């Protein structure tokens, strides 16, 4: 049943993809058959007879042996979905290195901050030269008055 979910997870919604201009062409697809999932139910009949609240989910990606653990949410069902997202991200980094989405995002952030710094420096420079001009102008003016 989660298979449907996973297929859907393989790619983020188109809206996100367009806006972010990240390159998803290498982003992996998670095969449910490659995953070994462990989450607790314990022995005994299950269902109505027990009231267990265990929320923790472990996944192992068999081909790469990458593992993730997720207990972010109260519900195991939510953690199962979240764990698959985490596994996909790890798998992406493992397979695609500098082309992975995480690396792209990091590079973009870096570009943005360099750009920001550059703009700030330019602004600072303009301000400084303007101030310099003002001072010289003022100086001239006052000299004029004398």
């Amino acid at each position, binding site marked *: 049943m989660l298979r449907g979910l996973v297929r859907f997870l393989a790619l983020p919604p188109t809206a996100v993809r367009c806006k972010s201009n990240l390159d998803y062409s290498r982003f992996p697809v998670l095969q449910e058959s490659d995953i070994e999932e462990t989450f607790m139910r314990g022995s005994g009949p299950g269902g109505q*007879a027990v009231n*267990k609240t265990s929320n923790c989910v472990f996944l192992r990606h068999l081909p790469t042996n990458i593992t993730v653990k997720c207990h972010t949410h109260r519900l195991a069902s939510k953690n199962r979905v979240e764990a698959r997202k985490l596994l996909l991200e790890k798998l992406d980094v493992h397979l695609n290195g500098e082309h992975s989405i995480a690396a792209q995002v990091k590079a973009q952030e870096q570009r943005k901050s360099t750009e920001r710094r550059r703009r700030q420096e330019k602004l600072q420079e303009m301000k400084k030269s303007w101030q310099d001009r003002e001072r010289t102008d003022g100086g001239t003016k006052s000299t004029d008055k004398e």
Partner: protein
Amino acid sequence: MLRQLTRSMGPTSRLLKQVNYGTNAPAGTHIPVTKALEIGQWEEKLKAAGVEDRKFNVKCIVSHVLKQKFSSVPDSFDQLQLNPGQLADFERFLEARCARMPLQHIIGEWDFMDITLKTSPSVFIPRPETEEFMRLVIDDHKNAKHVDLLEVGCGSGAMSLSMLHSLPQVVATAIERSKAATVLAAENAKMLGLLNRFEVHNHTMEEDKYLPEALKDKKYDLIISNPPYVKTEEFQFLHPEVVVYENLNALDGGSDGLRVARLVFDLACRHLRPGGKLWLELGNDHPPMVKTIMNLKYEGRLKFIAGYSDQYQRERFVQIEKV
């Protein structure tokens, strides 16, 4: 129950009041959660009471006491502080948990798929397997134009309300024998803004009185139920949370666990439209039994379509079609 526990809760809170936290902290100041846990020896007490998943239990209670979303509470409580009121609640709830009160009753709410439901003493707490069951049912109806749904024994409303929440084309009617559950289901529907597509009747399904008078001529496209299915012989395995805090009418399925399910079969014969579906959540050995019952007793009326497994790989769900 909680009130009694508060009254009977003694030594630790008295102890806490006498202890001076920090070197010169004035009375009534905040104390770190880690310290409260240590001083109250809660880890040991929970363990002695047979509570499993203790970290998770404590985190749920911390998040409830601090009124923070569970997912926003860090795993380490080093930075979290309790004021005196919060500390009193914290200890009261942990004490209740040691008495095996279900976490869901202590917190007063629990999640089910994408919705959060209020819980109420004695009303059956939705189980994780039922989420998987509902995922199958919802998936089977996501492309239908309109669905008239009937649920038998809705408890807190979890099944019907999660379906209404995900599919706008569904209109649901539920029956429920417990007054407390009937009230809770209506409250949950109201809280989720689903009352315009949900009605619940306080009615006990019985032979020849399957539905209340007001619904006696109604037909449905889909009937769902998680009827009591615990076999008498399985009662010895019930957890304390279940035996002490849940109504046995919600669990007791008679000697083979199918006593109430059989009534649902007969109800389905009368109230399903041709081609309509009956989906049931049942116990471990039930699907093959149901298949046999369908073939022997309901030929020409109901047809067994398939059995399905829950997320723990136990075959527990069945789909039946009205001929």
